[in-house]
């Protein structure tokens, strides 16, 4: 299938106008030695029905769809209202570029403005950007931003931070002067505040505290922020499960200076991990160091309200190597979906959704803990994920459960050698009581 719109007559007349004897001749400026003298080794083009058949066949090889899955760990299955797909798939939203011509981009710009507002409201901060790539790169940008703000070289990373976030931050900061310092967790699964206090010093730029953390445990952001501020360091809250913001106190109201996170839970499908949505918000004082695009309010020549991309002197296309980040293309359409999702859920719906996650998770936690030998690994309060310690080898149990097409969770030993035979289980509103009971029954059986 070709998407060319020219007829043969068009081509001929246009070649004439262009002064080229043939299509070949259009490339006369290319040296002969580098020209490809053969056809690309790419199969013949497909028609739409052939294409769909081919891709359906490939998609069908992913057996995940038949599983009862409790995988979470930074990617969560939540309800997506029909309006999210219906509205976000409009060509007027899908097919424009970055709104650099504001007069013909008011739709996108107002959506971004509303998105920024929603993120500020949820995180309790003054300003938010128009999106970053994902939660991990947003966390990395937060570390770099903290360093720009106070010039200090150390960043404290709790071991309870999502391991993929930690590795991304390591990659992003490898060629900078930043030093990354790990901080351990206690028996409740929370950041070890004593260790944090001892590692905070006047060279510390920030502590990045994920809440709920990788183990699903809700951190005491206020205590962490207070300790950080006492040494003049910044507190950056990292949120990998943004739905938690519907019920937990906003990080900004507990002292966080920067909030960076992952917005996948807001209307974005699992999609094998992407595209999702990095978000970032902060105190107004930090505006000049915030990475990413911003939509701002202004007026047109007749004094009517309008929106424009603003403060672009922070960005690469103006500031080049002195920019706050190299980011250009962001995740605008994902932010649109999040905006539709959040406005559809609304104030009461979002809270109820978050509450259902807490209730179902508690039900699952108690149900599973009732199985002999199975116990919660940590005592701290959880949102919609928890770590279980199993009385048998996780690999063996996992294999037995997979025979029944149950994926009980993410094994932790690979990333945390001290969490041998521990599994991270995620429960959301999409799991029914029967699903949870089936998991419990199957685990009980697998342990026999």
């Amino acid at each position: 299938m070709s998407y060319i719109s020219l007829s043969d007559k068009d081509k001929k007349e246009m070649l004439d106008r262009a002064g080229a004897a043939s299509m070949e001749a259009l490339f006369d400026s290319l040296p002969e030695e580098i020209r490809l003298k053969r056809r690309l080794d790419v199969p013949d083009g497909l028609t739409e029905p052939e294409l769909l058949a081919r891709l359906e066949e490939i998609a069908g090889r992913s057996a995940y769809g038949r599983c009862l899955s409790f995988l979470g760990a930074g990617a969560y299955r939540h309800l997506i209202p029909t309006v999210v797909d219906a509205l976000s798939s409009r060509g007027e939203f899908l097919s424009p570029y970055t709104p650099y011509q504001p007069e013909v981009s008011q739709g996108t710009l107002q959506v971004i403005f509303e998105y920024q507002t929603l993120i500020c409201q949820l995180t309790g901060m003054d300003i938010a950007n128009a999106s970053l790539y994902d939660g991990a790169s947003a966390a990395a940008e937060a570390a770099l931003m903290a360093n720009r703000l106070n010039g200090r070289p150390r960043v404290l990373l709790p071991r309870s931070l999502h391991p993929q976030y930690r590795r991304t931050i390591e990659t992003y900061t490898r060629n900078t002067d930043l030093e990354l310092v790990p901080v351990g967790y206690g028996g409740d699964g929370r950041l070890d505040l004593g260790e944090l206090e001892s590692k905070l010093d006047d060279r510390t730029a920030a502590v990045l505290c994920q809440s709920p953390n990788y183990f699903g445990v809700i951190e005491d952001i206020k205590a962490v922020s207070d300790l950080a501020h006492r040494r003049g360091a910044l507190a950056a809250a990292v949120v990998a499960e943004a739905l938690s913001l519907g019920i937990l106190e906003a990080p900004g109201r507990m002292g966080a200076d920067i909030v960076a996170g992952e917005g996948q839970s807001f209307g974005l499908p699992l999609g094998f991990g992407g595209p999702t949505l990095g978000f970032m918000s902060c105190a107004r004082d930090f505006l000049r160091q915030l990475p990413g695009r911003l939509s701002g309010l202004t007026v047109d020549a007749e004094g009517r309200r309008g929106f424009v991309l603003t403060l672009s002197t922070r960005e690469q296309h103006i500031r080049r190597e002195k920019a706050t980040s190299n980011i250009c293309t962001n995740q605008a359409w994902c932010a649109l979906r999040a905006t539709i999702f959040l406005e559809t859920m609304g104030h009461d719906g979002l809270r109820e959704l978050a509450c259902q996650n807490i209730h179902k998770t508690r039900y699952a936690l108690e149900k599973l803990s009732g199985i002999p030998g199975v116990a919660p690994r940590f005592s701290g309060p959880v949102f919609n994920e928890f770590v279980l310690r199993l009385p048998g080898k996780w690999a063996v149990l996992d294999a037995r459960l997979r025979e029944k097409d149950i994926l009980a969770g993410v094994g932790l030993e690979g990333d945390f050698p001290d969490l041998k035979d521990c599994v991270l289980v995620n429960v959301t509103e999409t799991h029914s009581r029967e699903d949870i009971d089936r998991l419990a029954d199957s685990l009980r059986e697998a342990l026999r």
Partner: protein
Amino acid sequence: MNREPLIFEVSDKGKRAFRLPKLDVPFRKDLLENCPLRREVEGFPQVSEVEIVRHFTRLSQLNYAVDIGFYPLGSCTMKYNPKVNERAAALPGFAGVHPLAPAEYAQGCLEVIKRTEELLCEIAGMDAFTLQPAAGAHGELVGMMLIRARLTDRGDPRKVVLIPDSAHGTNPSSAHLCGYQVREIKSDGRGRVDVAGLERALTPDVAALMLTNPNTLGVFETEIKKIAALVHDRGAFLYMDGANMNALCGICRPGDMDVDVIHLNLHKTFSTPHGGGGPGAGPVGVKKELAPYLPVPVVVRKEGRLVAEEDRPESIGRVRTFNGNFLVVVKALAYILSLGAEGLREMSEVAVLNANYIRKSLEGIYHLQYPAPTLHECVFSDKLQKPHGVSNLDIAKRLIDYGVHPPTMSFPLIVPGALMIEPTETEPRRELDVFIEAMKAIAREAKESPELLKSAPHAAPVRRLNETAAARNPVLRWTEDMKEPSRT
């Protein structure tokens, strides 16, 4: 024109657009007793479903889009985004799969990644690709990290990256984020890299040359082989910004030009929708020497099965979560499979034909600073209109009145008052002609009634917006005390 209110301005307590099924587990009062919970999310909207649907439908109507008409933004490759690709990306075997699903449950997704990597290797002439980077700039960063890792293993990461003055702003920014100083090299009188200047700039502390080819003028760097040889001779690497790959598919391959690292923009060349600013994808291709350093995970075939390998000691590590912007990759794969080998070549040929058709139609009416032959785009300037007090901004805004989107403005920086036009291959001739006639009419208007241009647009949902005021007093979110300014 009716203005669409902010959703917060139509919100009213108790309205709902969505209801959840009843909780099917026991309700408990004692949950999270010791955690600080919020009573409310202050100002969070409460509206009905009808209000949601109308709000976003009306907002969508304030946008110009490729689905509406000609969108000749230079360097952005605003081609048509086939609808079937959206359907492909929504297949449950792609959209519904958890990124941490064990490999045996995700073979289809892993196949998409492997197959797309193989196709991109063939199209670009590279040995290996990673699909991890989320966008072009992310790809640049990854590419520079690969070079740095390799040089470090050779004993010295070096200090400097050379970048032509015509480059995208992301190039210097990405190099800087990777710990390199940026040294700008001047273009020659034809808009190409000045090879003699490059040779002088290639000191022993140079790690890489970042080169866009065809460059941002749409001009092919004809001395690319010589440039590559010079760079390699000094032990440095040649990085190619593949943003303009839309001109080259099936015509020539960066790998055959001795490029060491390239990033491609799937949202440009391979037609995944720009979505109002993203998501894109910026896959990075490398030659063998750099392949061990690619970010994890890497999809490999083992005993007839595909697995995502994490444990690769020489890898630069992770650059984001999970498996990249996977559903964007699905759309690009769908596009490549639809076009096939012949279609890809025709894509580049017609992209170049359309650009040259526009160029020839407007030459003389608008100033062309660099007369060298161009491929997929051409860069005019406002030099001939300047004497009438009219700038490229005025021309761009006036185009809106003619129903087409303006070209890219003021870039590349080596052309003052630039108007950078990239029609892409999917445009019908009629739409090209509408644009050409509009540009001609505007050139006449610039002479006869420049005020018309300076006060444009006249037919957009809003008149010209005050960007200075937005930056001087940044209002970046709605607050309860916000009032719509009264009309003057």
